[in-house]
């Protein structure tokens, strides 16, 4: 037992280090991940310890990162790709959608593509365009991929290891504005608190279910605390797995509360909340006291950073969503 207070970023580093220690086939590839340790320093120190063949600084080409990783996977490696920012994953989109997602099916199961594509995502860091996007819906809509998002240090530590161990390709979203958040957990524990594709009820409640993933989870918890002071009991669920969707956990909660508010930074139109709304409405048609309320990004390109506060779902907008759900 080693209780330590670790940042989310460092938890990812440690998780990858453990995976690399355990399995010599785990290799990392991405831009600036070597000496620099990545622009967010998530791979800091790993090249020094594991060498340039296991922590590979790639040429500046994302299709190349993912495409060569597919080849390494075919050779028996377990590549972990780093995409520098959310907005720079699109040059690799073809490789992800047509190759990474489909190769296992194409081979009728004869080959596995056990790779992880790490993507720091979300806004709130005051950056110019392409640095604050939330592209998760593109991947969750793509059959053949698994898509997860961590929200806190302990999950980051475990989820990255589980993703690397998964025999399917995993798109791994990291909430970049939470990289420096710290939490205490047992860094020596030998088994994960839960499976990679399970949701987590972060805070139980009875009046309304509040669901989200990644960077908004912290805000949701704060909102629940604020609401409690005003007498509303909110159940907060950290979705964690966007695909497959841990729908049973959600449905079970909604059956209890009768109300669901879903939060994300991505544009609302065809965002995760739409799918969750559709499924929950199908499964809980008679239990829902209100339609599923979506608190999400506007349907515009991510705005200039001085306006991002007006774009991002903050505590007030979340509580406004809760109020709207309760108003029915």
């Amino acid at each position, binding site marked *: 037992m080693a209780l330590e207070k670790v940042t989310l970023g460092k938890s990812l580093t440690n998780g990858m280090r453990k995976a690399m220690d355990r399995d010599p086939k785990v*290799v990392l590839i991405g831009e600036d991940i070597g000496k620099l340790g990545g622009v967010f320093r998530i791979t800091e120190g790993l090249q020094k310890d594991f060498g340039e*063949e*296991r922590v590979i600084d*790639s*040429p500046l*080409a994302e*299709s*190349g990162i*993912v*495409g*060569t*990783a*597919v*080849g*390494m*996977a*075919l*050779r*028996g*490696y377990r*590549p972990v790709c780093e995409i520098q920012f959310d907005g720079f994953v699109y*040059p690799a989109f*073809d*490789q992800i959608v*047509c*190759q990474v997602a*489909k*190769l*296992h*099916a*194409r*081979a*009728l*199961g*004869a*080959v*596995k593509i*056990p790779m992880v594509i790490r993507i720091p995502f979300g806004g709130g860091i005051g950056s110019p365009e392409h640095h604050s996007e939330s592209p998760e819906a593109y991947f969750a809509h793509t*059959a*053949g991929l*698994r898509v997860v998002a961590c929200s806190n240090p302990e999950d980051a530590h475990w989820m990255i290891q589980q993703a690397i161990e*998964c*025999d*399917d390709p995993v798109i791994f979203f990291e909430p970049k504005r939470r990289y420096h958040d710290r939490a205490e957990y047992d860094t020596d524990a030998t088994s994960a608190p839960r499976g990679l594709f399970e949701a987590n009820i972060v805070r139980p409640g009875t009046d309304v279910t509040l669901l989200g993933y990644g960077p908004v989870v912290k805000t949701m918890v704060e909102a629940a605390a604020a609401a409690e002071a005003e007498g509303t009991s909110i159940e907060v669920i950290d979705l964690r797995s966007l695909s*497959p*969707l841990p729908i049973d956990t959600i449905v079970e909660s909604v059956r209890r509360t009768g109300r669901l508010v879903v939060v994300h930074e991505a544009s609302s139109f065809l965002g995760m909340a739409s799918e969750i709304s559709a499924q929950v409405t199908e499964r809980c048609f008679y239990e829902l006291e209100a339609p599923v309320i979506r608190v999400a990004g506007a349907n515009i390109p991510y705005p200039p950073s001085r306006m991002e506060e007006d774009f991002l779902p903050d505590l007030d907008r979340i509580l406004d969503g809760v109020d709207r759900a309760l108003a029915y």
Partner: protein
Amino acid sequence: MSDKVVAELHQPTPEVGDGGPDMIQLLTPEGQRVSHPDYDQYVADLTAEDLRSFYRDLVLIRRLDAEGYALQRQGELGLWPSLLGQEAAQVGSGRALKPHDFVFPTYREHGVGFVRGMDPQSSLQLFRGVSQGGWDPTEHNFHLYTIVIGAQTLHATGYAMGVKMDGNVGTGDPDRDTAVICYFGDGASSQGDVNEAFVYAASFDAPVVFFCQNNQWAISEPVTKQTRIPLFQRARGFGFPGVRVDGNDVLATYAVTKHCLDEARNGNGPLLIEAYTYRMGAHTTADDPTKYRVSAEVEQWKFRDPILRLKTYLAHEGMADDAFFTQVDEEADGFAAELREGCITMETMAGETMWDHVYAEDHPVMEAERAAFLAYKASFEEAN
């Protein structure tokens, strides 16, 4: 489009390029053996029997191709991309490989697959529509067909990087040193992925040989739409060697490929080979080449037939007689009949298997959808 290209297109009798002085040739279109200071050594050990087996391969894959075409016409295949005219490029390069080398094909490399030992039925699955590939690439070190133009060049490069990470390059141990070969077309050379593959392969000294079959056409677009200069010269923009070989000359293709694979295995990769050849048929059975190319061009290329020239050579040198040629034709007949039989009887899998191999690990959505599908199907049976 450049004026030059426009002018070329409008010529009634096209100037059919002959590959130019840089093109490596060991066997002329007339079947004459010409010597080459650098490449003779790679064919020096080939016995008459070897050459006869090359010939057999060429004939068998041409028959395979004809059968694929016929099966499509008869509705047994949805589509067939013909390799007609490219037999020497495929056999020459394929035979140069060692079993532990690894191949990344496009959708047209039926001939390479054949010489790798693949069951020819395998490549029919995709075109019959019973699977999207369906074979195990590790069985013959022959990857699945890649349809998205150029995507496989990055896979080949990554695989080769893996080979190097495994320490299987430049050890001097012939059973260990491994090369990767990646096929792509002249049209593909324009894709970003192919050029990124060149960047990565050069940056990591990957043991990969890029094998471009320049069959002069990308569907309806002539190669001059993709490049101003011979394609083998693309490599020099990325700092690695490129060579043009007569792709209708099985000996030269064999020699050049063997050389390049050796180089790659020794740690001098990557390399680019441009096999200068011609797509004698349509792009696929869905295509109508009369819309965009004149028959005079095709006629001229008939004089460069890859099989005829080897046959002439073998006959002239007394390495094969009529009995042999007849025997190969008979073998081809049997081979074709078997292929046809195998194709027609190939089973379509039940609808519910659609969900079986999307994920390697358990996936609740796959299970739920499969169950729903079966229940739905059953509801019809109940209804009847």
